[in-house]
């Protein structure tokens, strides 16, 4: 490899690296739509979409270039006249349900959504049964261990 080519490769690598770790503050001023209503809708949608290359960040929060592309895509769809649902569907069609921060309730996911209420019902039933039992139970006589009985006798004798 010639020296010039090596240098070019190094510069390209550096540029790529710089792109990856670019410090930017999430939504950029130049991305924002002039229409505040559309922009507000875009922000709301962005908060529910995951940045695919990030760890658990929405595209609204993320600094990654890909998140920026997705933000622009959402805005493009809205400007084109899509409803919120249509814009989200458009993204999900292309990137899969992985982008949805709020999982759908379809298929096996129904278990995720009803887990909480079901556990509360089950736990509530057990809890109620326990309360009933405690209310009905007779207070048992305090049972002492042999060690304590011995100690009690000692105290009583002295």
């Amino acid at each position, binding site marked *: 490899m010639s020296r010039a080519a090596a240098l070019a490769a190094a510069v390209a690598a550096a540029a790529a690296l710089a792109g990856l770790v670019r410090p930017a503050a999430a939504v950029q001023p130049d991305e924002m739509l002039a229409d505040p209503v559309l922009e507000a809708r875009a922000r709301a949608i962005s908060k529910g979409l995951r940045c695919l290359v990030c760890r*658990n960040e929405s595209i609204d929060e993320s600094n990654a270039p890909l998140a920026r592309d997705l933000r622009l895509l959402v805005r493009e769809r809205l400007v084109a006249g899509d409803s919120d649902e249509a814009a989200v569907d458009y993204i999900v069609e292309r990137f899969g*349900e992985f982008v949805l921060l709020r999982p759908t309730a379809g298929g096996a996911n129904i278990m995720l959504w009803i887990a*909480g209420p079901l556990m509360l019902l089950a736990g509530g039933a057990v809890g109620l049964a326990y*309360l009933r039992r*405690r209310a009905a139970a007779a207070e048992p006589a305090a049972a002492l261990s042999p060690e304590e009985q011995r100690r009690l006798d000692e105290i009583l004798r002295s």
Partner: protein
Amino acid sequence: MLVEFGHFALVLALAVAILQGVVPFVGAARGRAGWMALAAPAATALFLLVAFAFAALVHAFVASDFSLAVVVDNSHTAKPLIYKLSGVWGNHEGSMLLWVLILSLFGAAAAWFGGRLPAALRARVLAVQAWIAATFLAFILLTSNPFARLAFPPMDGRDLNPLLQDPGLALHPPFLYLGYVGLSMAFSFAVAALIEGRVDAAWGRWVRPWTLAAWMFLTVGIALGSWWAYYELGWGGFWFWDPVENASLMPWLFATALLHSAIVVEKREALKAWTILLAIMAFGFSLLGTFIVRSGLLTSVHAFASDPARGIFILAILAVFIGGALTLFAARAGAMQARGVFAPVSREAALVANNLLLAVACLVVFVGTLWPLAAELFFGRKLTVGPPFFDLAFTPFMVAVAAILPPGALLAWKRGDLSRAMAPLAGVLALSLAAGALVWAVGTGRSALGPVGVTLGLWVILGAAADLGQRTGREGLRRRLARLRRLPRADWGRAVAHAGFGVSLLAIAAVTAWSDEDIRVAREGESFAFAGHDITLVAVRRVEGPNYVSAMAEMEVARHGRHVVTLYPERRNYPAAGMPTTEAGIDYGLLRDIYLVLGDPQEGGGWAVRSHVKPLASWLWAGCLMMAAGGLLNLTDRRFRIAAGARRGAAAPLPAA
């Protein structure tokens, strides 16, 4: 040399831990006092050995000993001393060593202050502590040796992740670990009680201070982490439902439930089996948290220390300890006979409801955190469970907890009367509802979150005040004030902690519902109006820090023409780590925070600038601190101190009736 001594101390510590795990345990089973007596000095020795190893590692970091692999990967000569120190636990190996250090500290503390415990119980508790210490020491020595040397030491280190170079995060792991590991005491007490087949009021009283201490540290640790995320990540968010955050929240929820159920054991000798189960689960979820963080199984913002091989080792530890404890529980739980009798409307019943809600809330977080993994393994679906799910699925439980808290705290033990408990709360309820309605009327067209949050927050805060007031009797104001001062610290602790919960609720609702945001390009010298303030970007300068270069903006905030504050948001670049960070400029205020972030320089000139106003943001962490302070007040209550002194004189300690 010191490094080798440190390594050797760790090996010795493992030997001592095994000894401490076996001899006193067998001694307790056979009733041999001498064998049991080994536990206390062994616990002290274990602590000293681990402390020595830790000190050796700290020395290596402070002296920038680049012959150590961990130091090279996580330190740099130009780094300020405090971050050289925090670098010790800002990495996998060092943080595991800190984990074991704290574990052995708790064990030693139990040996030092546990003189009033029955000898057999103490020996068993310390033995179980030693088993945990032994497995984690083996884990460190076999998979994550912090003392690994490099054959060819480099001239300088690679620096600590710049996000971690921050005072808040320097303290976050130690507090969190004090909490996680502190719960091991509750676990050891639970296992020891299961082996003895006996849980009584005395057991409840012994286990409560340890749980309380662990819970306080966990509360502060979580609050520190959340505060760090707030000011450092530059999004102005405070909780992201990240798997690692969830990993710390789950033990906290179980520990909170445990604190409350242990009261029932102590005062009423009921809920015994449940309390034991909670103690096992609380520590189990601490281990799970350690596993999640250390394995990187669920990748997240915190996965800087991920390694699947280590993850499997921790999973094995988790399986053995929790599986073993649960098996023991299944075999012995039947022997835990409840004695207290109580009506379905009583303080006990309210605490059962509290426990049910907290436990299910915790399981919801658990299911949500692990669902992506399950969906991929069993259904072949790659999906995300993000904040919108948790907000929806978790919040109702906290609303319910807050709703039942004030009357629950006022109900009588054994048999309560709901209308009598509600009587002192009538004014509180009316006031909270009125405030909520007012907020609802003013904030048109916004979500219900604000009004509901304000109502609940005030309900809990004022309810805590009513709880205190109720305990001062019905006489004249002066008598009542005098009595208020003499109330037991446990009463004060409860009220302060509950009020803290209310304050945090109020703040979360306010920040979430009423934050304002503005994003724009500003040129130097340009002013803009935002949320009743005038903000001027005066200048952006280049500043050199000890190990970074920074673009620092000077921004003036004025209100009605009067200067409020000058803030200096930054964008730093750490060349050694090759990583940029944002440092928000924050004016912490009583009623609102002003939060300014400097973005990219723009092509046409000027800088991207983001401004936020966050109402009541500081209250969020103040509320957490109040909860912890309430725990501290409770911990210093007379009954823990006096009971300790009274029993010390007795030859054979008797459990309190």
